[in-house]
């Protein structure tokens, strides 16, 4: 029966062959291989369509996997293909001509000639010898080549290890440092990085900051005799800008003690020579060039007003702008006669106690003006050298000074300030005010020290402009004093556009912004962050 013969034919497959063939497994493997290849083709298609760069590493990985699978399958089938031969089922006109070629095991003519020529090349000189020797010689050759290949493989593997490329088969084996060495190196690294980025370990202590022997060439003409390296007294000023600590009353307390400490320090040095970095901040001015009318140092040009005002000596003392606040105060002191200085000092003291939040600030800088501005001599008041470092505090004092002075010398005809103020129109005195400054500050100004005296009333506007100058000069400290006087929190809009908004309850407003922090308004980082 036909059905039986077919079955018989099917059963004729040798059991052994069948087992060896393991058809099911081969089938699954073939199918998975097919899927993998089609996936790769799809990927390539996608790459071609979207025009993106293919990730070659992934593709190579996939390819190697496919390759491996293919080899395994073909290997398996080769083992069992001997009892089988190809029996073309579907012979028609198309493949009739090509089938014999595909089925033949004979090489194509070109391949055949190539084969024979290679064989001749190989067996050159060995044609005559018996076959056995030929075989031996060929074997020897094979062994040599195999050895060379192995050597090459070894070198490649070693290089791979050394460069940590990794092998396809497994993870790279990397040599490790022993722990002690690693720790030492880590320590050194931290030192180095800190030194380069922050400067740790590079700061010389205060007493070593004098210029010794000879300066190197590039610095030889930088320093004159009177100047010295302007450096912070050790340990003090760097605390002024406390990095990353929030503004709080705690920090205020800390600095108060600092003030007192450095105050006592400076008292001891009150008679210091102008030379070196004893009191840092005042060392950098040489003898005041008073005769120079238009230089920024002279008291004649303390503000950015047009020059006609500077020409009369009586107008020498004018509303100050903020170049340096100490300089302002110094200049003012210079102009005032001695008694007025005393009065002013008293007034300042009064102001001091009236100011909140400044804690234990007791006295003032009293700068007796000697010929050299380069050094100060401090009177018997308790020093607040930290005051120098408190930009705000200083400006508050300035405010107080001006207030005090104006209120005191109501009738003083020889007060050049009033004279000058009287002759100057208002508009000229407010050159630098940004539009954002509110007019509110006028009010508290009125409260201070005003008597019914005419000159003072006239100068209410002067006081405004006076104050304005401090602010317009770019000193947010001026803003602080307004806040303090009003006993409120205000966000001031001074020349720094919102910088002062960080001020909190402390009117001395220690700004703890580090220059590397992101909330410095002058940097465009904030914009960039928004873009992210």
């Amino acid at each position, binding site marked *: 029966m036909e059905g039986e013969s077919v079955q018989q034919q099917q059963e004729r497959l040798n059991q052994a062959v069948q087992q060896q063939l393991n058809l099911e497994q081969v089938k699954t493997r073939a199918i998975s291989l097919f899927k993998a290849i089609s996936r790769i083709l799809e990927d390539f298609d996608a790459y071609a369509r979207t025009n993106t760069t293919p990730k070659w590493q992934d593709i190579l990985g996939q390819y190697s996997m496919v390759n491996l699978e293919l080899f395994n399958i073909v290997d398996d089938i080769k083992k069992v293909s001997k009892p089988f031969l190809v029996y073309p089922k579907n012979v028609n006109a198309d493949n009739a001509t090509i089938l014999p070629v595909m089925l033949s095991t004979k090489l194509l003519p070109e391949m055949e000639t190539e084969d024979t020529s290679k064989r001749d090349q190989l067996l050159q000189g060995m044609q005559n010898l018996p076959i056995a020797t030929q075989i031996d010689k060929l074997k020897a050759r094979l062994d040599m080549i195999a050895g060379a290949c192995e*050597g090459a493989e070894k070198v490649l593997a070693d290089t791979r290890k*050394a460069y940590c490329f990794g092998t396809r088969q497994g993870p790279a084996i990397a040599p*490790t440092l022993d722990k002690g060495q690693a720790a030492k190196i880590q320590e050194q690294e931290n030192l180095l990085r800190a030194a380069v980025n922050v400067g740790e370990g590079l700061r010389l202590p205060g007493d070593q900051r004098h210029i010794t022997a000879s300066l190197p060439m590039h610095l030889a003409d930088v320093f004159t005799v009177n100047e010295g390296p302007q450096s912070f007294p050790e340990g003090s000023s760097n605390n002024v800008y406390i990095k990353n600590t929030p503004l709080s009353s705690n920090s205020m307390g800390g600095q108060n003690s600092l003030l007192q400490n450095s105050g006592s320090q400076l008292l001891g040095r009150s008679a210091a020579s102008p030379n070196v970095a004893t009191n840092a901040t005042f060392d950098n001015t040489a003898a005041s060039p008073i005769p120079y009318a238009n230089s920024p140092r002279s008291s004649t040009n303390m503000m950015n007003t047009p020059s006609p005002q500077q020409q009369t000596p009586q107008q020498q003392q004018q509303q100050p702008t903020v170049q340096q606040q100490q300089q302002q105060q110094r200049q003012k002191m210079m102009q005032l006669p001695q008694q007025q200085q005393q009065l002013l000092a008293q007034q300042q003291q009064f102001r001091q106690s009236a100011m909140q939040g400044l804690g234990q600030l007791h006295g003032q800088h009293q700068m007796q003006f000697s010929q050299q501005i380069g050094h100060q001599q401090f009177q018997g008041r308790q020093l607040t050298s930290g005051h*120098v470092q408190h930009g705000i505090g200083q400006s508050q004092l300035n405010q107080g000074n001006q207030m005090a002075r104006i209120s005191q010398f109501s009738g003083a005809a020889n007060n050049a300030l009033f004279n000058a103020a009287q002759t100057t129109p208002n508009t000229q005195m407010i050159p630098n005010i940004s539009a954002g400054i509110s007019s509110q500050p006028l009010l508290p100004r009125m409260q201070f020290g005003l008597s019914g005296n005419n000159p003072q009333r006239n100068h209410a506007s002067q006081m405004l402009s006076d104050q304005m100058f401090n602010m317009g000069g770019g000193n947010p400290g001026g803003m602080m004093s307004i806040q303090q006087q009003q006993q409120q929190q205000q966000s001031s809009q001074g020349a720094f556009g919102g910088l002062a908004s960080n001020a909190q309850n402390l009117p001395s407003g220690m700004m703890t912004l580090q*220059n590397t922090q992101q909330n410095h308004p002058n940097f465009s980082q904030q914009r960039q962050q928004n873009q992210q």
Partner: protein
Amino acid sequence: MQLKKADMECVVQGIIETQHVEALEILLQGLCGVQRERLRIHEICLKNGPNLGLVASEVRLLCDLEQTEPSWTVRHIGGAMRGAGAEQISVLVRTMVESKVSKNVLRMFYTLGYKLDHELLRVGFSFQFNRGAQITVTVSSVNKMLKLHATDEAVPVTPGIQMVEVTAPASAENYTEVAAAVSSFCEYLAPLLHLSKPGVSTGVVPTAAAAAASLMSDGGGTTL
């Protein structure tokens, strides 16, 4: 003063043991294709005094001592970019403004009220080349001066380790490309050292010794 148009920079730092510096130089020579330039820079870091405002600011003056006529540069380094995007970038992007100045710059800053904070001396070499961005690689030993301004008597901060810095100027528009260029260049240096954002420590690379050895040898490999 002439200001560059790029106001930011991408920067990474790394360390390398002094014994491998020569190998690194060979590697860089091969990668960059330019000659190395010797480097001897006296870096003076100034911080502002309180009279200049409330915000602490820091300015660095760099004096190039390698030339016959020392040339000065002033540099201000600002804050780094922050945020999620910045964390994904493997380099540090920060504002940086630099300019050439005359030799009066130190005196000028002192007059303004800046004070000396610290100074250091860098001795080494640098490579400048263009590879997607204008990249500068600096390998230098960082030296400190025990006496003020005594550059001739400087001693290394860490004798066995030198600092490697890769920087490239960038602007707000192109910093992503510049960052990519810098980080892809850094991958070439992976056998010898790891580079990271300033402040992030990396340690030394374990393969450095082997890589250095192979770089230093002449040719290498055995003949079959």
